């Protein structure tokens, strides 16, 4: 049933491409229906899968001569991420309600992107996973290049090329693994049990991890992210930071760690405390947490703050992955969900609610616009989103970060300390953004506030309220009652750790 999320999205994209132009209203409604349907299926699939381990959805031979299967399946981790995708898709459509330029094509590319993402999360054949992973690249390019803002063509090309290079690295590893395992099959199950030699895994692991890590915002391969997020139109930023970066992390988990676990074994020698690829990536993750946070602290463009904060939050995911223990991995997956929703919320506010009305993202300008009075919805929405982003209890981020910290403490205490510092800096930059954009202490000058009254900034529309409510509920429910997701994630992580043979 979950496979219909993929098919519906692609079918929807095709139909949208063929719909008559000049009727943006029709396109929007249709896109919303498809996205919402996908979300509904994701919820239903999630509920149906509760208590079951991995369920296979389809498994047919695709290219028999090479043993490639068209295999779709879902375990707890997949279901949670599919749920996230449904949320991001629906919210993305809602927050793009005001797009008038080439509306059909916008939603067509958007749904194609979503379809590809669903596909990655549900694929259990490496070749199929790779195909979906690559399918997602081209719509991204066009979404940014056509409907983006600052330096969009440059940002789009950078993003496309970085993603493609990353996937090229994965392709190389895929080809090598296929050949090394006797060229029988490309399913994840087969490759995981194919007895690939530790020597092979020792280089296949970093290659794959970095290949996927590029998309996950692994430092120092993250530079596409701030530029890309800032340039992208709101819905694309939401999906980019919210879901696409999770594709990368998912790939790191399912492929790199799942197929090449011995790549994380100690090398036998150690250099300034680094003795294995696991150490390397954990340190890079921690650097990412700190770097992203510190750089976010000095930005003058609102959207760049959020962009860098995404790099920082993804660092938590990657750190959680490298802990290789139950609680750390659980936290990583939960953080994937949590940050996906929160990032979507933040970009929606900055991009759609603020930028589309004020046409500026510079703090200097926003300070003088006194948005608290003119756009109170945006201000309060950002308060809530900011609280969630800071990791305040009651929102999903708190639980996730808690788990990652505990998990990383069990692994190596120093990482925890550094990550903790990152959280504190996170509070600081969110705070700063909040103050400067909405709660400034400046008094309005005569120039800002003419006697005739404030310049009208446009009322808040119902799609914005709906999208905001959807995402806030998504993070609040999980924050208050984390079991709703943990019950799905924990068994899946347990199985993963047991099967992986990882340390």
């Amino acid at each position, binding site marked *: 049933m979950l496979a219909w999320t993929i098919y519906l999205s692609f079918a929807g994209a095709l139909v949208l*491409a063929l719909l008559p132009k000049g009727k943006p209203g029709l396109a929007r409604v249709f896109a919303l229906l498809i996205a919402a349907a996908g979300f509904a299926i994701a919820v239903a699939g999630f509920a149906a899968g509760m208590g079951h381990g991995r369920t296979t959805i389809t498994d047919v031979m*695709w*290219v*028999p*001569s*090479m043993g490639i299967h068209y295999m779709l399946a879902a375990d707890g981790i997949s279901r949670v991420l599919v749920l996230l995708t449904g949320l991001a898709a629906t919210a993305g459509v809602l927050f793009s309600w005001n797009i008038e330029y080439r509306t059909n094509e916008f939603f067509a590319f958007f749904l194609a992107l979503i379809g590809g993402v669903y596909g990655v999360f549900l694929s259990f054949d490496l*070749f199929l996973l*790779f*195909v979906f992973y*690559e*399918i997602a*690249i*081209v719509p991204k*390019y*066009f979404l940014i*290049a*056509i409907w983006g803002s600052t330096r969009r*063509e440059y940002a*789009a*090309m950078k993003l*496309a*090329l970085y993603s*493609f*290079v990353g*996937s*090229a690295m994965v*392709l*190389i590893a895929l*080809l*090598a693994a*296929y*050949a*090394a395992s006797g*060229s029988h099959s490309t399913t994840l199950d087969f490759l995981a049990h194919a007895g690939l030699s530790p020597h092979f895994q020792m280089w296949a692991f970093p290659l794959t991890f970095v290949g996927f890590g590029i998309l996950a915002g692994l430092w120092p391969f993250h530079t596409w992210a701030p530029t890309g997020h800032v340039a992208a139109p709101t819905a694309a930023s939401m999906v980019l930071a919210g879901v696409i970066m999770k594709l990368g992390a998912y790939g790191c988990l399912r492929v790199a760690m799942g197929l090449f676990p011995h790549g994380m074994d100690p090398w036998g020698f150690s250099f300034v405390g680094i003795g294995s690829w696991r150490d390397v990536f954990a340190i890079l993750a921690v650097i990412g947490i700190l770097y992203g946070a510190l750089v976010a602290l000095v930005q003058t463009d609102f959207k760049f703050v959020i962009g860098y904060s995404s790099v920082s939050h993804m660092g938590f995911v990657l750190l959680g992955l490298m802990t290789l223990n139950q609680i750390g991995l659980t936290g990583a997956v939960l953080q994937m969900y949590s940050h996906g929703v929160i990032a979507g919320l933040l970009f929606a506010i900055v991009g759609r609610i603020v930028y589309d009305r004020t046409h500026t993202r510079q703090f200097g300008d926003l300070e003088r616009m006194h948005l608290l009075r003119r756009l109170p919805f945006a201000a309060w929405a950002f308060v809530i989103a900011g609280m969630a982003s800071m990791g305040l209890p009651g929102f999903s981020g708190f639980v996730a970060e808690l788990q990652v910290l505990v998990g990383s403490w069990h692994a190596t205490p120093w990482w925890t300390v550094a990550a903790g510092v990152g959280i504190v800096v996170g509070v600081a930059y969110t705070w700063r953004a909040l103050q400067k954009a909405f709660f400034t202490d400046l008094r309005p000058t005569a120039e800002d506030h003419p006697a005739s009254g404030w310049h009208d900034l446009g009322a808040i529309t119902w799609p914005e309220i709906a999208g905001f409510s959807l995402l806030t509920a998504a993070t609040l429910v999980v924050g208050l009652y984390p079991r709703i997701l943990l019950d799905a994630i924990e068994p899946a992580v347990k199985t993963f750790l047991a099967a992986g043979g990882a340390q």
Partner: protein
Amino acid sequence: MNYADLFRAMLPETALEIAALLVVVVDLAFLRKAALNTRAAIAALLGIVGCLAGVWLMQGQGVATFSVDGTPGTALLVTGGYAAVAQIAILILTAFTLVLLLDSRFTRHVGEYVAVVLMSATGGLIICGAQDLLVIFVGLELLSLGLYILTAFAKRSGKSAEGALKYYLFGGMSAAFLLFGFSYLYGFAGSTNLQEVFAAIVAPDVSSSPLLYVALVAVAAGLGFKVAAFPFHLWAPDAYEGAPAPAAAFIASVSKVASFALLITITAAILPSRWSLLLVILAAASMFAGNLAALAQVSVRRLLAYSAIAHAGYMLLGLAYFSDRSRDALLYYIVTYALTTIGAFGVVGVVERATGTDRFDGFLGLNKRNPLLAAVLLVLFLSLAGIPPLVGFWAKFNLFAAVLTTHASGLSFALVALAVGFSAVSLYYYLQVLKRAFVMAPTDESRIKVDPVVMLVLLLIAAAVVVLGCFPALLQNWIGIASKAF
């Protein structure tokens, strides 16, 4: 020598020749007063019928070897097996390129044009099945001479003449090298039959001889020219740029298929490690040169030329690490690549006629001017870049997997890694054109008109690219089964 057998073996070639003569006769005799469109349509139609007849005739051929006195040592031609695959591909692709003639205005001599195309195609067919050095050479020359003429066909264009001249001069020299190399091989073997040559060169005293190396290098030079491998590629950009669009489509597709089929034959026959080494060097150099040079282009035709060089590089890897599996993968690659290229040149031709230029800027706003054409362009270029689920991706994956399965060593792995890396680079330049078509605003918003039949064929090609990419087993199985028979 039984001429009946020879005739049977060469039925498809005969069909093409008859079609070619028929076209000329019909055009000269009956269509002198007709409009150019009609003449072009009829000529193309006759050509296509000829091609299809050729395909039909191949059904009855089966797998057979035609030799002078019945022994393998004197075999001249084979039919069936992978040769048949290549031949069918050539016939179908030729048919497609003939369709492109319908929309073009570069010449009044449409009958002669179609005839030359068909004769070239005949040469291509001969090459596929050739088992003897001289037969190879004859087929190659038949193919090449036709191509030179086709390049020059746009009499009103200076670029056409320039391209053709470069092609001819370079080609002539390469043919000389090839013949020189063949003569050495004959010297070793005492016979021009490929089996005899192979037997001779694996003999210990010959295989270490430096003269063999000279021979192989000369042969590589000659053949490298045909497939536009670096450093024998200098003709390609100018020829691609100067030739009229349908002719360029033919050059880029059919001649490549034939040339690679030939390379497969020769590689299967001569397998010394030095030949592999040569191919590796050519492959690596072509990948580098083709991709890097393509980055700097501003003309779509030259872009396609350099990308052809790059693709030749990928394909040569399949030859360098030769096995049944890599052979099949190579066939898959070249056939689908050729199909995609025909489509690409089709689109380029249409845009050129509408905007007067083949520079990137001619594609500005194509999305608005003709959305269907833009969609076709999107599919084709992404396939060339290797984006799934299009056939170009599968072809690359299949080929690289075959290479690694055939011979997994540090070098082969490094080369595959290089190829994959360069594929990533190639996305950049393909996106440049797509960016113009979809993202940037048009300078001229008028609608671009396309002949309905041409549009249909382009759509068909795009659809094939998508379908074959989503269901790779379709073509793969056919190639696998057909080649095994050999």
